[in-house]
């Protein structure tokens, strides 16, 4: 068998085998997606851009406490509200800001939110929130969190302002948060 060993060492069969592999890949289907024209489809649980609904938010600060890097700033005050004749004190949200510039999209705020369905959610499928200037454009206050100006929603996903509420008509649109088990 020494002869075959010598022959194999002289004639590079295994190099040809390697060339065969790359040769076959030459004809295989390509994996490239032309990004701007063809957008990759995020999955349902994709933790993308924030969604926020002020009606459902009870200003309990649970999300601000749960956030590992404390970038949710909430201020609220009490107001007297007449509910069926009884005087009730109700919390009103003044300020609900998220410093998205430093956010790591870990989703702990969405998990901590006690309301059903959640008032702050990340599972909107939009990921195009790039900005030229980070301090201003990426600091989302209550209004922008709902109107999403400056964020291009993923086609088919309603922005919070367009009523992306789970009980919006036609059940939960693809982008809204289905209630967590």
């Amino acid at each position, binding site marked *: 068998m020494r002869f075959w060993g010598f022959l194999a060492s002289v004639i590079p069969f295994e190099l040809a085998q390697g060339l065969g*592999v*790359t*040769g076959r*890949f030459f004809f295989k289907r*390509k994996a*490239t997606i032309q990004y701007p024209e063809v957008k990759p489809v995020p999955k349902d649980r994709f933790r993308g851009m924030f969604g926020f609904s002020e009606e459902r938010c009870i200003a309990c600060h649970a999300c601000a406490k749960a956030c590992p890097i404390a970038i949710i700033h909430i201020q609220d005050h009490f107001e007297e509200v007449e509910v069926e004749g009884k005087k009730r004190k109700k919390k009103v949200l003044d300020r609900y800001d998220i410093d998205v510039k430093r956010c790591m999209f870990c989703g702990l705020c969405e998990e901590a939110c006690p309301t059903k369905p959640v008032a702050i959610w990340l599972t909107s499928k939009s990921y195009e929130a790039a900005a030229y200037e980070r301090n201003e454009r990426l600091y989302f206050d209550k209004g922008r969190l709902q109107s999403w100006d400056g964020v291009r929603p993923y086609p088919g996903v309603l922005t919070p302002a367009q009523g992306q509420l789970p009980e919006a008509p036609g059940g939960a649109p693809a982008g809204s948060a289905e209630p967590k088990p």
Partner: protein
Amino acid sequence: MPAPLMTYLVIPLVKIVVILAVVILLAAYMSYFERKVLAYMQIRIGPNRVGPRGWLQPIADALKLLVKEDIVPSRAEKLVYFLGPVLVVVPALLVFSVIPFGPAFKVAGHVVTPYLTDVNIGILFILAVSSIGVYGVILGGWASNNKYSMMGGLRSAAQLVSYEVPMGLSVVTVLLMANSLSLVKIVEAQQRSGVWYVFPGFIAFFIYFVCGVAETNRNPFDLPEAESELVAGFHTEYSGMKFAFYFLAEYANMVVISSIATVLFLGGWLPPFPNALAALWASPALAWIPPVAWFVLKMAAFLFVYIWFRGTFPRYRFDQLMALGWKVFIPVSLVNLMAVGLGVLLIGGPR
């Protein structure tokens, strides 16, 4: 227009312009061809944004390099730094003057030869000129006053010198068979004997091509510009047009090696098995294929193999590369030279 002025000045000038234009365009589109083929081997697509299906990518690259700022390191040797790329490009383009792209043919009464000159010491000229390219690499590496590029320069000097020898020896085996140094006569010798020299001199062909890959610093021998080790080897400090020259020279050298291999081993512009299938090639269906097409087809095949190598093989370490060159290629090519010499002596070869 007096005849000598025409034959010694105007026609060569026209040919020079044509050949230079073709070569530079070919080298530019080589980069596009390489990026596309490499991409297809790596399940991706390659440039397809600039122009239809990416056709204008090389033009865009050239323009970019043209207008890019040409940074010269402060403590570089200005003159030698400038000379580096020149010394690499000029030999690469000079070699094309001798390569026969096709046989002489008649156009409106004039005999037109699709090559610049038919120097009767063609092979010697090519080997001599292409070894000047080494200076460009070494001087470029040393002059840019950067540790990495100096190492890159030294490495490529040792590599090019030690692979020049086996390449020369394998070319000599072809000379034995063709009994002439001029490239045109070699192709005609292959036509007369009806067999391409790749069949009798297969070992020489294999060694020639592998050494060709080493001469042009291509994978698996791309030590001098091994990105992972020396950042970018000898052309780390070059940018703008000077970098474009190194780029152009590398691709031009690839085309040179491929075309010489075509001429020496695959019978230049001859269709496969020129004599045995002469009837087939002369038949009306295939008669219209110009000889130049055969030449370009074979050269393209070689270039594809170059890129195929780049997509597949890892890189040799420097000492292994030298060991392979000296301990394997040189002895084998010497033994092969003797064998072919003996063969030619016995069989008698073309007179």
